[in-house]
């Protein structure tokens, strides 16, 4: 283990020594890396976000792809998003637990881990981008996209559990790579399945490096600079330094295997999430008078936007795009985490996963958007991403930016840990299992952490977005093909549930006692 740490430390130390010797060109380093990578980032995002002009605005086809899938699955499964809302809560609480299961991965643990990967800077900074580009109306479409996206998540997490690999040592490996290859092979579409799985794995690596890594470190760095004095900050123009510090800490966890840091983070993140939502609610209460105006701005902006590029469609796109990036419904990544749950009924994990986009988008993202709209900061020029959110909160709680900086760093960190795991899974799927292969990816991951802190938000977002959305290209094809299977499973489960065959834990204990 130490040998790996030495390799990492050695390379990062060498890099930082080289950079430190030329401190006056440190800002040049930032700019140089930016210049080098920006064209590549823009090229890739240009392909993924290929747009067609609709009513005078560019509509990215991939957003259509995601939204159509979400709406289709919602209807195909008869609005399971809402039908199973309460039952899913009971599953998460453990009401239907098997008495032999304690000690295994519970439904709550699966969704909590998946959420810690999904709730990240997209909820804080991404929403700010959406509202600044699309106006308050983007909030409305974001919520709509979140509600529909629940169905996509339902399908992919059910399939993730159904087609997972259970290894001899008891560990499990699941996710789109597995359900695409195994599921389609069962339908005589082995070649297609394999091809989709490989395409997904490649895009997942890109997503892990982009949205799960670069974007997180970028925005965490921005917020840190923000609260430490902007241009006067010690950290200003030292993105490379911040990047290296975070890369080292991430490296200690994922390469060094020192889990204690990750464990501590996993415990703090939910707490910070609650604090964040709580603070947002307090701000809403403090501005109670403006709430009706904010709501009418949101609804009005959703259907009749003023001075927004692209008008109605533009607003719609912004809302949908941010929701998709934030809650990852249809992307397939969360099904990797959800697939570890212990259950005999894969459909139950799909039902549990319904709550993930709900918590992520309908609750957390909406809170961010409401604060930004109510405080009116989105009209201010020059504020972007996490700076905008920070300014919004600061209006009522002047010291909140410091807490936000802490929250942002923790959210970013936990998202990076989760995505490094997803990335490793994709990498080993492509290149085979093995310590050396895992280490290679993990080092690449840490290097990209540094790069992300250094680049401009625009290019980082473009690249991150495009990789993440590209994962859905393969994933959703598989979801469409296997949807009938999931419907059969759902109908069977729902019938058995309604007829009383599926017992709650209380009922089971009572029956055993009789």
């Amino acid at each position, binding site marked *: 283990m130490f040998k790996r740490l030495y390799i990492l430390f050695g390379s990062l130390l060498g890099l930082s020594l080289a950079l430190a010797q030329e401190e006056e060109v440190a800002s040049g380093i930032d700019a140089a890396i930016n210049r080098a990578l920006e064209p590549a980032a823009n090229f890739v995002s240009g392909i993924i976000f290929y747009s067609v002009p609709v009513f005078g605005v560019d509509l990215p086809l991939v957003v259509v792809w995601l939204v159509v899938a979400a709406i289709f699955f919602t209807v195909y499964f008869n609005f399971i998003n809402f039908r199973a809302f309460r039952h899913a809560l009971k599953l998460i609480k453990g009401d239907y637990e098997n008495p032999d299961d*304690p000690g295994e991965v519970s439904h709550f643990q699966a969704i909590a881990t998946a959420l810690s990967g999904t709730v990240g800077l997209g909820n804080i900074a991404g929403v700010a981008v959406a509202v600044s580009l699309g106006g308050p109306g983007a909030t409305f479409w974001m919520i709509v996209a979140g509600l529909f996206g629940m169905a996509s998540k339902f399908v992919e997490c059910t399939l993730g559990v159904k087609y997972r690999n259970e290894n001899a040592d008891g560990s499990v490996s699941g996710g789109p790579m597995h359900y695409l290859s195994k599921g389609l092979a069962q339908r005589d579409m082995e070649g297609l399945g394999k091809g989709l799985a490989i395409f997904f794995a490649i895009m997942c690596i890109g997503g892990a490096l982009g949205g799960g890594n670069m974007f997180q470190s970028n925005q965490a760095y921005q917020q840190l600079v923000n609260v430490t004095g902007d241009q006067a900050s010690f950290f200003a123009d030292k993105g490379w330094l911040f990047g290296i510090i975070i890369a080292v800490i991430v490296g200690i966890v994922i390469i060094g295997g020192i*889990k204690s840091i990750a464990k501590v983070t996993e*415990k703090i993140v*939910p707490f910070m999430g609650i604090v964040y939502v709580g603070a947002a609610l307090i701000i809403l209460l403090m501005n109670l008078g403006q709430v009706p105006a904010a709501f009418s701005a949101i609804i009005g902006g959703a259907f009749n936007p003023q001075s927004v590029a692209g008008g109605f469609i533009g607003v719609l796109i912004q809302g949908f795009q941010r929701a998709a990036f934030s809650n990852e419904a249809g992307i397939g990544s969360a099904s990797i985490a959800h697939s570890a749950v212990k259950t005999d009924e894969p459909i139950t994990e799909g039902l549990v996963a319904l709550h993930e986009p709900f918590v992520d988008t309908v609750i957390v993202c909406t809170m961010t958007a409401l604060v930004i709209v109510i405080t009116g900061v989105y009209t201010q020029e020059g504020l972007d991403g996490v700076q905008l959110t920070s300014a919004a909160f600061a209006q009522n709680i002047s010291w909140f930016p410091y807490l936000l900086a802490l929250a942002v760093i923790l959210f970013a960190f936990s998202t990076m840990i989760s995505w490094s*795991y997803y990335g490793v899974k994709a990498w080993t799927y492509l290149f085979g299992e093995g310590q050396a292969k895992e280490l290679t990816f993990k080092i690449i991951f840490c290097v990209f952490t540094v790069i992300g802190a250094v680049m401009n938000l625009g290019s980082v977002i473009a690249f991150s977005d495009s990789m993440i959305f590209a994962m859905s290209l393969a994933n959703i094809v598989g979801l469409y093909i296997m949807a009938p299977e999931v419907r059969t499973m759902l109908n069977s489960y729902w019938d058995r549930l309604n007829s009383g065959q599926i017992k709650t834990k209380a009922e089971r204990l009572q029956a055993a006692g009789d």
Partner: protein
Amino acid sequence: MPDTFLVGTDGSACAERAAEFAAQRAKAEGASIFLAAVVEWSRYAFYTPEELESRTAAKKSEIDKANTQVLEPLKEKLSSDQVKVETLVRHGHAADVLSELAEQEGASQIFIGRHGRSRIEQALFGSVTVRLLQSANVPVTVVP
């Protein structure tokens, strides 16, 4: 039908005394002993994705460890008392698990040590024994 005495153990010396005390009572009354070790686990704990992946293997090793380090040695010690001893490892919160097990196995009494392995843990997190006293549905005998 002969009585069952449920004994909770965490491997501490106090738990051993509780088990021996229970065995003597069981021998006198012709009852059998049900020896239970609880691995602290919460359904609401937070794990990293890697821990989730290997949870089943981890659970098995926790159970094995409890069996070899706590239950088997204790069962050995009690074997001289010619009392029937059954053992079980379960995950959960100790006090809740013991209460549930008492009901499931139809135990007439629970025997438990007054304090466990770590006094500091007890001071910080509360005593399993005290919680058990408050929640159990059968008589509880606390052995110092």
